[in-house]
């Protein structure tokens, strides 16, 4: 476990993360997240985070080494989309039994890798460590190395057992696995001055595809998206990109920063949520690529795409203004989304009565103040009971949040919209923003609300039938 703990230490020391940079040495050692409170914790483990980050690589076999819980209880639950291979949706696990726990699970793991390669012949096998084999001392690295040599195929160990920390740490440990074993291990057939990496975009509900046509039009080639709709060989060759965009806040900052360090690929942090942010991101992509030698006309091409798309998006939002003006939104999400969608929601007349900042950085908070003005209502930590009360008392007309708090709103008989990772709609880019506003309108104006709030007949005064 010494290598694992040093990895975790390195991740906690990430200099690219400004939260870390602002901390004292002592505070940094303690790690990124507050110690979890038993009996009052919510959220996934590090293994969950690693799987979320890597499963979008669509053509590899993802093998989970552990008892049935880790994979059997969780597979087929993420909406990441593929334009081709479907192997990533097939679930593989060693399903360790009592014997494996007593005698060690290494043999079963090795045989499992062999079976997978014989039956499915993927370009690579990713093997995920979990708590039980980590405890009994199964040497995942050694088994993967041996299997890789024996079968002549990359077998990648992902060292992120659940008990080392939360989901966010797992994202980063997954990044380390790619940096150690995948990125830079192959060379692309050709390169162009327009080659871009997108890091931290998982193509949930196909969101990458809301943006890719715009990049195509600009002439930008996505050399690799890490890891939405990715192929193994693309990721292995991603070190030849000219520039990179890092999305989804800090989840994979270690990949972006280390690729800059190792392969001199400059990156910027951007977002495809919100109209202004999408435009900024497209501009930055053009600027970075031009700075790395792409023809200067790329900037004008980006501007022309932005002009057209922005005009179209605002035009599409126009009809919603009258229906949405003054409706109050409670926004419970994290990080970038706590401000990046706010501008567009405000532009159609929605009133943001609160936005959560639990998972936001200081920078995020500054942006919220900038956008929402001095009266920005930032919510640090809201219990489900408080959310319920706020909705029940009709201090908000709709809540936008993740699936966890869905029933808080619905049981209060209030409209709710999913904007986190389990959602079924794609909200990225310009098309995504109009989709989001359309969904809000649909939710607010659904005819059920008046009906479900009507009292039951026995709660009303009796009517005479005479």
């Amino acid at each position, binding site marked *: 476990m010494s290598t694992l703990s040093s990895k975790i230490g390195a991740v906690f020391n990430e200099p690219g993360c400004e939260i870390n940079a602002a901390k004292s040495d002592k505070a940094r050692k303690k790690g990124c997240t507050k110690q979890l409170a038993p009996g009052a914790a919510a959220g996934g483990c590090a293994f969950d985070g690693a799987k979320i980050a890597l499963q979008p690589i669509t053509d590899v076999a993802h093998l989970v080494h552990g008892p049935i819980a880790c994979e059997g209880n969780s597979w087929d639950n993420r909406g990441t989309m593929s334009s081709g291979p479907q192997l990533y949706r097939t679930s593989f696990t060693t399903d360790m039994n009592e014997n494996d726990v007593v005698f060690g699970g290494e043999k079963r793991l090795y045989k499992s*890798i062999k079976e997978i390669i014989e039956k499915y012949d993927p370009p690579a096998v990713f093997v995920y460590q979990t708590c039980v084999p980590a405890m009994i001392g199964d040497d995942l690295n050694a088994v993967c190395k041996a299997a890789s040599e024996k079968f002549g195929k990359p077998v990648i160990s992902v060292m992120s057992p659940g008990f080392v920390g939360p989901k966010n740490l797992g994202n980063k440990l997954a990044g380390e696995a790619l940096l150690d074993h995948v990125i830079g291990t192959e060379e692309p057939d050709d390169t162009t001055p327009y080659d871009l990496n997108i890091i931290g975009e998982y193509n949930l509900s196909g969101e990458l595809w809301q943006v890719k046509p715009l990049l195509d039009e600009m002439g930008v080639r996505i050399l690799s998206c890490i890891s939405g709709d990715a192929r193994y060989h693309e990721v292995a060759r991603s070190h030849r990109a000219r520039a990179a965009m890092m999305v989804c806040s800090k989840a994979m900052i270690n990949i972006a920063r280390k690729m800059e360090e190792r392969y001199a690929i400059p990156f910027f942090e951007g977002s495809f949520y919100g109209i202004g942010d999408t435009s900024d991101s497209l501009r930055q992509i053009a600027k970075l690529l031009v700075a790395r030698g792409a023809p200067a006309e790329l900037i004008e091409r980006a501007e022309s795409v932005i002009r057209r798309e922005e005009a179209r998006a605002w035009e599409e939002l126009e009809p919603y203004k009258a229906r949405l003006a003054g409706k109050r939104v409670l926004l419970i999400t994290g990080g970038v989304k706590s401000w990046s969608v706010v501008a567009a929601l405000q532009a159609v007349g929605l009133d943001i009565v609160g936005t959560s900042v639990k998972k936001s950085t200081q920078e995020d908070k500054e942006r919220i103040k900038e956008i929402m003005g001095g009266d920005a209502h930032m919510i640090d930590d809201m219990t489900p009971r408080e959310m319920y009360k706020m909705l029940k008392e009709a201090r908000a007309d709709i809540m936008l949040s993740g699936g966890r708090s869905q029933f808080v709103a619905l049981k209060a008989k209030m409209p709710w919209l999913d904007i986190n990772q389990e959602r079924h709609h794609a909200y990225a880019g310009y098309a995504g923003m109009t989709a989001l506003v359309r969904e809000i309108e649909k939710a607010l104006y659904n005819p059920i609300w008046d009906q479900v709030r009507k009292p039951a007949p026995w709660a009303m005064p009796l009517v005479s039938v005479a």
Partner: protein
Amino acid sequence: MATVVASRKACTVNPLKMSQPIGGALAFMGIRCCMPLLHGSQGCTSFGLVLFVRHFRESIPLQTTAMSEVATVLGGFENVEAAIVNIAKRTKPEIIGICSTGVTEVKGDDVDAFIRLIRANHPELAHIGLVYVSTPDFKGAFQDGWSNAVVQLVEQLVEPVSQGRRMLRNPRQLNVLPGSHLTPGDLEELREIIEAFGLQPLFLPDLSGSLDGHIPEDFTPTTLGGISLAEIARLGASAHTIAVGEQMRPAASVMEERTGVPFTVFDRLTGLAPNDDLIGLLASLSGQPVPAKYRRQRSQLVDAMLDGHFHFGGKKIAIGAEPDLLWSMAAFLTEMGGHINAAVTTTTSVVLARVQTGEVLIGDLEDLESRSAGCDLLITHSHGRQTAGRLHIPFYRMGFPMFDRLGAAHRVSVGYRGTRDLIFDIGNVFMAEAHQAAPDTWRRSEEAAPEYAVPRVSVPQELVMLTELI
């Protein structure tokens, strides 16, 4: 009749099985004001929670002792204690149901001893019930976790009735111990049937009060309903116990040992014969005639069997389900004239050998897929959707989880009425797939008409009017 074999593969592909701890947690969710707690890393809870939310479309009370790597090495007591104290403070439950996981079982935590120590340290928590069940992830399956949790509930919460002591029994009170394969809708159906005989059923666990999707008056962080602790305590005063599914036999027999309440196990309640047995038992327990409603429902079921048998007869069916559900469905489908061509399950059980098929495999959905080609129907939980898609055969969802359909909690397949509707549901799937006859349907390739040299005479272009010839 079937041989039961275990898959010999090293790698499980597309698991059918889910783990014991979440089966145990679901059982605890059938108790009023309860907070189930998994003693393990936070992921154990998070995965289970998401799965239940997707299936029931409800808020799910489920907490974690949040074992970190360090806690796993150095001790688990502090985490269990902190979790109980925090839950008591934040959600004010009447009972906390604790399940172990793989991590804490490997570590060897003696949670029963932890609880004794916590009881001693925290007299202020004396009013909260604490029930612990051992549910290692690396043994058994979902159904076993449920079954083990109910045994512990009976052992730890039902007031014992000592031998020889006279006990005031309530001749109208009836215990029902439902297996994990019964839905809240199934429980509601059974309640209605039992109450129609003037009996008062108490379900342990009772998901029909907690996960039936109702709107509570106010925000509730624990379970929304279910059987109360006081009701569980007096299960020993019942006249009889009905257990549904072989998985509930251990709990029923522990109940009998502790309280002397005799029991009947129904290994299934789908199909005509087992429901005749149930109605017969209820009539004799209550001393009441069978209500007219059930006489009509039986007649309707018989009619549905007559109408439906055309569509079920000779059909080849593949089923992947936990033992009790597999047995229940296989028996019902066989009785309707279908053939079980493939049967895959998750864990061992005495019912498996009874299935009318060659072999029952303890395996995964990859095994089921490789055995299902050419079948007319695939029955398993929602994870079978990819398999059915690849095989291009109709798919009927059954069991847990069912995350890609609405109303999973309200699907009813017990009783005369539930069986009747199941015949309609599955029969309609067969009808929708019925093959239309085509010109070549009955032509065999080896009998293709040979090319005979037939002289062909061309017809003159101009038509000759018959009248002109006359």
